[in-house]
Structure formats: C-alpha cells, structure tokens
C-alpha cells in the first residue's frame, strides 16, 4: 500500500490556511511526492472557522474526500481549540502543531486526545515581527519542518519564494522567509 501522509489545517478565514496548504503541497511536489491539496469552502468570510487539507504520497492520490485521519494537524488560531475538536480522527502518533503563546502542555489539556504529540510556536508574534502583519501561515511551515519530516526548512523557504515572489513586495517576501526560519528555531514540543 502507498505511504500516505494526510495533513489538516484549522484556521480562520484570512489566516492563509488555503495558501499554506498549497505551499506545503508544492514543497512536497518539488521533492518528488504526489500531492493533493484543497480547502473546505464554506460561506467564505474573514474570521470564520475553515479547514484545508493536504495529502502527500509516493503513489498517485485517488481519494476525493476531506482528511479525517490526519497524521499532522496544524492550528493557526488557538481560540479554535475551545470550539472545534482539532484532534478528531488523529491517531496517537499524530502531531498537533498550534500557533499560540501557550506551552504544549497547556494545549494538550484542551485536546480530546491527550496522547498526541503537541508542538507550539508563537507564529502570530513572529509574523508581526517579521512580516508586520498577523499572517501566521508561513511561519507554521518552518515549525512543520522542524517537528515533522514532511518538508525541509529549505524546501519550505523555496516553495514560499516560488509561490509569493512577484506577488508581494521584496520586504514582505523576505519577512516571510525570515518568519519561517524563526519558527523553525522557536517551536517547542513536549
């Protein structure tokens, strides 16, 4: 059977869960993996909870449904921990990566499954420092590189550069790249 890694992003409209999912998929594709990435489109509005999904595999991906048993869960907004079961369907060896100033132990107390790996990083703080805006999605890619093997630090930076170069000013692009590096250094796991 093919080796399949499924990733689920939880965020709010405007935080970039869709774009980050696409960048992650493109980074994996650049490493030679088969990929599938799609957001869950609801009534699109800024601030509304939304999810996006990424599948990465060594074989063509034929499944066409939302990710329900993620190996990796990424939460872009810690206020979602109280309103959504972000651990839903995740097996005990899955990791939950949260943008928060809380410690992994504090986050674990809010999860429906206390056995999961938990990592935290203040991606919002890093984004405000480096990008000057509360866009926590790209720093999370750095944290993802550190805590999982699904993408490398260089791969994440390269994919962000390819996706955003030309669309953003050079300063904002460099801010994004710096944010990835900082999140890679600052992510904590327990």
């Amino acid at each position, binding site marked *: *059977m093919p080796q399949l890694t499924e990733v689920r992003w939880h965020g709010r409209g405007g935080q970039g869960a869709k774009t980050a999912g*696409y960048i992650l*998929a*493109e980074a994996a*594709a650049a490493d030679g993996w*088969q*990929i*599938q*990435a*799609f*957001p869950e*489109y609801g009534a699109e509005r800024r601030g509304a909870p939304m999810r996006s999904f990424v599948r990465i595999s060594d074989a063509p*991906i*034929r*499944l*066409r*449904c*939302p990710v*329900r048993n993620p190996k990796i869960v990424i939460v872009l907004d810690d206020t979602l921990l109280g309103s959504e079961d972000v651990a839903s369907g995740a097996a005990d060896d899955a990791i939950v990566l949260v943008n928060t100033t809380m410690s992994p132990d504090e986050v674990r107390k809010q999860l429906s499954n206390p056995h999961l790996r938990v990592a935290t990083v203040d991606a919002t703080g890093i984004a405000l420092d480096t990008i000057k805006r509360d866009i926590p999605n790209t720093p999370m890619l750095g944290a993802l590189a550190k805590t999982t093997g699904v993408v490398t630090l260089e791969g994440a930076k390269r994919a962000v550069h390819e996706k955003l170069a030309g669309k953003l000013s050079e300063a904002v692009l460099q801010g994004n790249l710096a944010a990835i590096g900082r999140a890679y250094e600052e992510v904590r796991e327990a």
Partner: protein
Amino acid sequence: MAEQIALEGNQAVAEAMRQVNPDVVAAYPITPSTEVVQIFSQFAADGKVDTEFVAVESEHSAMTACISAALSGGRVMNATSSQGLALMWEMLYIGASLRTPITLALVNRALSGNINIHCDHSDSMGARDCGWIQLFCENAQEAYDTMFQAVRIGEDLRVRLPVMVCYDGFLVSHSVEMVKVEEDAAVADWVGPYVVDRPLLDVKKPYTVGPLDLQDFYFEHKRTQVEAYPGVPAVIEEVGASFEAAFGRPYGLMEPYMLDDAETAIVSLGSTAGTVKDIVDAQRAAGKAVGALKLRAFRPFPADELAAQLAGKKAVAVLDRSMSFGAASAPLYSEVTSALYARGATVPVATYVYGLGGREILPEHIEQVYEDLAAVAASQKADTQPKYLGLRE
C-alpha cells in the same frame, strides 16, 4: 519538455485552452462562470493567445456568441458551471442542432434552489438531452487531456458537435494536484488546424442556418440530426487512442477497473471513481472479487459497450450525483438499466444517490455499497428505490 506541475483543476484547463489558442472565447466573466475564464482572460490580456475574447453580458449571450463564431468558421471554447449552464439552456440545443463544434469546460456544480456552489452533476444532467457530447473527468490531468481531445472529437467531420468537458466542482476544479503539462508545440500539433467545412461567411457558397422549419421539414431534420450520434463513440475511442500514442495516457468511452473477473461492480462518473478504485484495491486485498466501471462518455451513451462490460456480473451498483425529480429513477441508473435490460442482461442493479450540493462521499460509503452488493448478488434482487449515501434521515 513536458513537465509535472502542481495545478488546480481550473488552472490546468485554462492552460489547455491557452495551448489550443482558440479563435474565440466568449464568456461572462463573473460568478457563476469559473476561474477558467478569469485565468484565460488574463492570457488574452497579456497577449499569450491570439484569441478574440468577448466579454458578454450573460451566459446566454456567451453561448450565442460562441455559436455564431463557430458558424462563421472559428475554433471556439468556453467555460461555465451550474446556473451559468442553466442560463445557456436554450442556446445549448441550438448549438448542437446547428452542428457547431464548441468545446465547453463545465465545472459540475449544484443548481439552485436553495443556493449552493458545491459539486454535483445536476447541471450536466439537466443538459443531457440537448445534443452535446458529454465527457466526464476524474481528476485535473484528465480534464487537461480531455480539453484537447474534445476539440478533435467535436471538429471531426464525422461528428461536428459541441462537447462538454465535465469535471467536479471544488473536488477537481479547486484541488491542487500534479498535472503533466505537455509542450505547447506538441499539443498544438496533435490538435491540428481547424478544418472549416462550410463557413457561413463564404459568399460563394451561401446557405441558411436556423431558419423557420415547420411541420413540413422539422421532423426530417431532427431525424437526420439523430444520425450524428451513433458514430461518435468510435471517434471518441479513435481520438483517445491517438492521444495515448502521442502522450502515453489512454482514454476511451469508459475505464474498467479490476472488472474482468469481478462478481460485483460499481458504476460512477467523475472524481468519485478515484475513491472507488482505492476501495476496490482494499477489497481485493481482502480477497473479494469486486470491480468498478468509470464512465467517461455519458453522451452519447455507449450502451452496447457498457452492457458488454457489465452483463454477466452477479450485481451492479450505480452511483448518481444528481436526481431527476419525478422520474422513475436517477439519470445514470436509468441509462445503465435501459442499456442492460434492452440487451437482455438480467443483472440486478442497485441505485444510490450521493453527494448532492457537495456532501462528502467517504470510503466507508463505498465499502457499504460493496457490502450491499454482496447481498444483492446472493438474493438476485435489487431495490428500485435509491439508497442515499451520507444523508441524515
């Protein structure tokens, strides 16, 4: 060099349109049209295509302009979805009746009401009697590849009909996946130049299209129009084989999957066929003789070929992603059972409706269908009423 690129389905289809470089694209560039038109209009604005891009005031006008351009001798393409196709409805019939080879990318989405933007096949099925060829695609690669084939099929002098290239809204249109994008010159050569057989603007050979056609001749004209369709399946297969020879990816009227020695099978359209294949693999690994049939050509309906694939199975299930209100059964099930029973096949066929308005279809739904089929195979009786997958009742 051809290259593998991560693309959304709509991006892949717009890329195919850029490579075909049609003479005319007439579109209404706002919802309910698609990103295909948005992306393509950028290509036109950037001078990457030679296309005359006509921004019209409605989908009805879009199809009218496409038909007129096609009659005048242009190679014409367009894209739409859902309510957009519904608004074209009157002109769809005229486009087919006037034998205009138009290629239309159709992103399959639900019809109102209530308002819904997500995937189902109601839009295609609403247009199933209008005379267009309808080809369904499982993924972005198939949608990209089928756009080129649609041009060749529709323009073939044995066919001369408009073609809808149908692919699932959001599930394919807004999903990023790896797509092998061929070289511009390679696909342009393969598609070839448009052979204009009787342009309306040829003043030396004037003829009339779309005139008043009353009791004395309309019936004969419809009788001759129906003759256009029996030869189409062979052209679809021929073009598919030519595409495989050039680019290595096979296409035909349908794709059987582990079907030869299967005792039971699921028939489906579009992206769900991918999920079905994964479940077939899992069931086969557990020793169960199951298979699947993905139908690619829904119009013309390849009844003989489909019956040949399914006759002799112990039980078959048909998955419909739309309903036909007031009809005896859902559209695909109706076609499959007509094809089988008219040819004397007595295989029991179970009917399922799923996924309306984007409701998710999950692996366990497909597993449930195969489980049901084992019981149908044993009893040789299938319920004539549909079961609904993933519905709260």
